[in-house]
Structure formats: C-alpha cells, structure tokens
C-alpha cells in the first residue's frame, strides 16, 4: 500500500512539475494563424518575411490569411471576432483598434520591445493605459496622380508638395480643358469622411468628430465642400456618381486612376505601391492641398495585434516583436505598409530602398513638420465613417438631397453615435 502511495505521489509531483513548466517548450512546434490585407506586393513581402522567420525559428510556422483590401479584411475580421475565432496575429488599423481593445478581444502586449520606436507612435497602440497594438509603420495622407499623363499635357499648374486648395482647383480646370470631354481630372471626394476631415482641418476648424466622440462638423465648411463637388460634377471635372462610387483602390477593374478615367485621387503614402506596381514610373505622390493649415497627417499605417484568446501568447509576441524590430523582417517588408517605425531597422534598410519606397519616405519627411496631429478615431464610430456618412453624402451626389438636407441627416445620424 505504501509503495502504491509513493508511486502515486511521484506521479502527482511529476504532473505538478509539468504543469508549472512553461506552456510550450522552446522547440515545441507551433503553428500560428496570421492575417493581413493589401495588394499583391504587400502579400508577397509579408510571406517572404514569415518565411525568413521560420528559417530562423523552424519550430514556428504560419497559416497566412490575407485579403485584398481594408474593407474586406475589416468585414472578415468582424465576423471572425463574433465567433471568437480571430487569428493569432492580425494587422490592426487605427480605425478599429479602440473598438477591438474596448471589447477585450486583443492581448495586452507585454513582451515586445518598443525602445527603438518614437514614444508618441507607441502611445497610439495603447488603450486605457494598456499596450494592445505594436506599430509597424507610419504613413501620411496624400494624393496620388498620373505624373506621366500630367507631363504629357504640358500644364502650367501641376501638383507640387505644399500646394493649396486654390492650386488644386486651378489644376483641375486647366487639366479638364486639356483632357477633353471623355476624361475626368479628379476623383470625387465628396463622400469620403477622410477627405472632408482633411478639408475641415485645413480650414483650421478641427476634426468633424472629436477624439472623444463629439460632433464638430462646421456647417458652412461642409456645405461649401459639397457645393464644390456638385460644380465639379456638372463640369465633368469629377466622374458621374455611378462611376465614382465603384472606386476600389488598386483594383485594375474598379480604380479610376488605373483605368485612366481620372488623373488624381486621394491615397495614403503606404499604398503607393498599389499603383506603382501596376505601372511603374507613371504615378507620383503629392501632399493634399492645404489652406490656413495643412490637410495632411502622419499616422501609424499598420499595427500588429494578437488575439486575446490565442493559445500561444509568448510565441505570437515573439513573432510580432521580430516583425517590427528585426532587420531581416525590415528587409523583407520594405515600405509595403509605410515607413518602418524602428529607427535601427529604418537606418539599415534605407540605402537599399526601391524608388517607390523612397517616394513614400520623402513625402512623409516633407509632411511631418507641418502635419496635423492625428487624433485617433473615436471609439464606436467606425460604422459612421465607413457606411452612414458615405450613404448620406451619396444622396447629394445622386441629386436626391441638397447639401443642407444631407448635413441635417448627417448630424442626426451622428447623434446616434454620441455616448
């Protein structure tokens, strides 16, 4: 009996020791799901980085999940989150970070090194004092335009960094006279919250929705913005609304810039590769027009976050840390998501940057001194920015509402989001 008790005690002790050991030994094979969005160049670069990681740490492999665009990824992630099936590692956007963090769906990152990243940028990845999102890169708002075509047209007013809204109007009018009836000049910005936000910021009137979720639309400025585009629509400077609303950045069948229907549209410096990879040496980046203040801001273009319910928190954090802080990762990723945030990595890869990445880096460098401070999107407002605002503005585009009626509708809808 005593012998049996001893054996039992040894077994219990062994089990307890096993239980007290780290969840996974260093060489235990681990497979992590990792998800992101973006154009082909971004996918290829990310896959190359993951291959490099697995080559260095063979016990960790990946199941990559990627889709072409931010809205598609956002929808898919929301559905996965509803089923509590978020991939172990995900690319995170400022637009959704607060929503996911406030719902407790993200793991607090405690084992990543942020010492080589600007503290203000690191702060963007926090929510309620906890660090949930590791910044990967920064990018600025921008316009992308068909530089080759603009040069061919021989215009006197061309896009240049630091240009004003008046310069933009002059460019549009001169270009319209040059391109003729069947081609338009500019994308229609009237239904984009991001673009109106830039317009109101540049007029020194702050963000239309404040960081704490209060309504700050300036009626006169908003109506003026809408009337400008009604006029542009009538004069054929921007495409008819049925063409404008099908825009999809970087899609060769739906992007009016790639289709040659417009010469200029809004973008982020980090997505420049979407156009440049389709037709090299054709497109260029330029700052957004400004007024009394700049329109542009520099923001974190991509974070890495980890699902709160991941089975491998240590391994996932190691991967995230490596993706941001390793020169190998930096070399593989380049600037596909914007300028790298780790100063050492940036210094190491800068000499070998492609011309696309150099253009992106130059723009961020130009904008940074006068950039608007980026106020993170208010918590719980994502559907307003992505859906409701667009739908109401489209009523103006299609002539169903006047700008004044649409303004009232926007304010009423916005009030539903105020907490």
């Amino acid at each position, binding site marked *: 009996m005593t012998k049996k008790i001893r054996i039992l005690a040894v077994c219990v002790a062994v089990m307890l020791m096993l239980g007290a050991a780290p969840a996974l030994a260093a060489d235990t094979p681990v497979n992590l799901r990792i998800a992101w969005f973006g154009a082909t160049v971004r996918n290829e670069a990310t896959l190359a980085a993951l291959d490099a990681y697995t080559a260095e740490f063979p016990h960790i492999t990946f199941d990559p999940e990627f889709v072409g665009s931010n809205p598609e990824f956002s929808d898919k992630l929301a559905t996965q989150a509803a089923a509590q099936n978020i991939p172990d590692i995900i690319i995170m956007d400022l637009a959704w970070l607060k929503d996911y963090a406030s719902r407790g769906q993200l793991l607090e990152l405690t084992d990543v090194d942020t010492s080589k990243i600007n503290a203000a940028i690191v702060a963007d990845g926090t929510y309620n004092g906890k660090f949930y999102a590791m910044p990967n890169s920064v990018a600025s708002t921008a316009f992308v335009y068909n530089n080759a075509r603009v040069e061919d047209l021989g215009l006197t007013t061309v896009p240049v960094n630091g240009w004003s809204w008046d310069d933009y109007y002059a460019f549009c009018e001169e270009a319209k006279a040059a391109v003729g009836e069947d081609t338009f000049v500019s994308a229609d910005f009237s239904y984009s919250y991001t673009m109106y936000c830039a317009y109101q910021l540049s007029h020194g009137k702050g963000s239309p929705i404040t960081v704490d979720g209060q309504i700050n639309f300036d009626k006169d400025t908003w109506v003026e913005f809408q009337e400008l585009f009604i006029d542009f629509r009538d004069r054929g400077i921007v495409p008819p*609304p*049925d063409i404008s*609303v*099908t825009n999809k950045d970087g899609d060769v069948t739906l992007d009016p810039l790639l289709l040659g229907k417009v010469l200029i549209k809004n973008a982020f410096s980090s997505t420049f590769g979407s156009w440049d990879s389709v037709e090299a040496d054709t497109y260029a980046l330029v700052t957004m027009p400004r007024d009394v203040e700049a329109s542009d801001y520099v923001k974190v273009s991509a974070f890495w976050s980890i699902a709160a319910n991941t089975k491998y928190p240590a391994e996932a954090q190691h991967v995230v840390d490596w993706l941001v802080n390793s020169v190998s990762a930096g070399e593989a990723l380049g600037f596909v998501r914007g300028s790298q945030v780790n100063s050492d990595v940036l210094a190491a890869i800068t000499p070998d940057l492609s011309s696309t990445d150099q253009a992106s880096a130059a723009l961020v460098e130009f904008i940074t001194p006068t950039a608007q401070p980026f106020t993170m999107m208010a918590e719980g407002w994502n559907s307003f920015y992505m859906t409701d605002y667009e739908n109401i503005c489209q009523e103006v585009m299609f002539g169903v509402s006047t700008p004044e009626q649409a303004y009232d509708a926007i304010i009423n809808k916005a009030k539903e989001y105020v907490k």
Partner: protein
Amino acid sequence: MLHASAKGPVINPRRPRVRRWGSPVAGYLFIAPWLLGFFILTVWPMAMSLFYSLNDFNLLSSPVWVGLDNYRRILTQDTVFRKSLGVTFRFVLLSVPVKLVCAMIVALILNRNIRGISIYRTLFYLPTLIGGSVAVSILWRNIWGADGFINQLLGLIGVKGMSWISNPSTALYTLIALGVWQFGSPMVVYLAGLKQIPTSLYEASSIDGASKPRQFFSITLPMLSSVLLFNLVLQTIGAFQMFTQAYIITNKGRPMNSTLMYSLYIYERGFTRYEMGYAAALAWILLAMIAVITVIIFASSRLWVFYESEGG
C-alpha cells in the same frame, strides 16, 4: 407454404409476445441523430436568438435585459430598417413572379421528347447551382459595370450606358436579373409537375377543338397550380433571405442603401456594429413577416390551386 395447425398458431406461453412497434423507444432511437441535430442546431440557437433579442448584447459582455426595447427602436425609430424593408419587398415582389414565369416557360419548352433534352435541362439548371456563388457575383458586377459587357453591347448601337450596379435607380434591377437567371430550381419542379399531367386531357381537348393557349389555361395551368404554390412559397422565402449578391455586387447595399436587403442589414447590425441583440430582434421580425406572408399565400391558395381530389 405455411401450414397452420387447426388450432391456430402455436404461442409459447413462457415468452410474452413482443409488440415490435408498440414501444416508441426504438423509433426515437432511430431518429435520435436527426432529433439531436434539430435541437442543438435549430431549436437551441433559435431560443437563444429570441432571448438575445430581448437583451443588449455585443457577444462578449454578458447580455443586459432590455425587454422589448430593441423591437420598439426598430419599429419606431430606425429609418434604415424601413428602407431595407422597402428594398426587400420590391425585390421579392419583382423577382419572384418574373422568375416563376421564366421557369414555367422554359419548363414548357423542355417538356418534350427532343434529342439531347437532358443536356438542355442541365444547362438551364446550371445557373441555379452557381448563381449564388461569390464568383458569379463578381462576374455579374463586371457585366453590369461601367465598362461591362452590357455597355459594350449598347455601345455597338451607339447607346452610352452607365454603371448599372452603382446607380440607385438601376442597381436593384441588376440583382433582380441575377435572381431571375437562377430559375433552374423551380423549372425542375415544374417539369416534374408537367410529367404528371395525363396526356388524355390534351387528347380529349384537341378532339374538342381546343387551341394551344386554351389548353394551357384550362389544363396545364390548373393542373400545375399545386406545383406553382410550392414554388411560390419556396421562392418567396428564399428571396426574403437574399444576401450574397447584394453584399458582393453592390458593395453591401450601396449606393445610398438602394440595395440594402434585409439580411444585409441584419449582418451590418450584428457583425459590424456588434449589436447582436438588435440584430436578433431584426431576424425575429423577418421570421414573423415570412410566416405571415406564407400563411397569406396558403390561405389564398384555396382560390386558385386545383387539387385533383376536388374533382371538377
């Protein structure tokens, strides 16, 4: 041959006679797999959905009881609900009749003994198999887009088209066209119904001098009316639940919510805004609407459905 004794069958007095179907246990055991599936995958989720519809619930936090507040907000305050309801009813009222008529016409054409008829039937049924897929939705988007096939055809005759999928006055009709294109399923049911109509009725009416249209309205249509009822109910329910095409082709109900199908709105509330309680209430309202409409269709069937057992 069985040889029963004069005294009848011998019964072993020690063993009580087993009534094979007397006990329900065996029967329930046989249908247990289905019953389990039904309770776990249908009854339980429905019960939970009903419960959540009475709560404020975001999937992650505990539900907070709000009673009928979600229903009150939907019915009294939600303008998008009313918009999506209008869009969905327009879709159902236009797509279902056109689809059923198309299916019947094609079924009548295919209900004849011509060479290779099975190949034709397969080809006409094919859109039903693939029509609800994402791939076909993307194809449809390109067909009806600004530079799509339709506009290229129109260009040949000098007509300048538009982007049919992104114009609020035409976008819904592109979805209706896709819905109608998938007529294969009701067509197959019609074909089965047509096969059941006795040829003697046509022969007798021919002798009496009935024309083809007269035969169709006096024989074919009445004899097919029960099949028509079946198709009408199924297609109406299916049309109310349309989702994928509106999600993919018109980019989640755009423009201006002109193609915001009811199912899409449920998805938007549940999975984009994480208002699962509200979305569950929307789903129960949809269920109630479908139930009421189905009851109305069945009630009206007394007036227009002919059953052979009724005579006549």
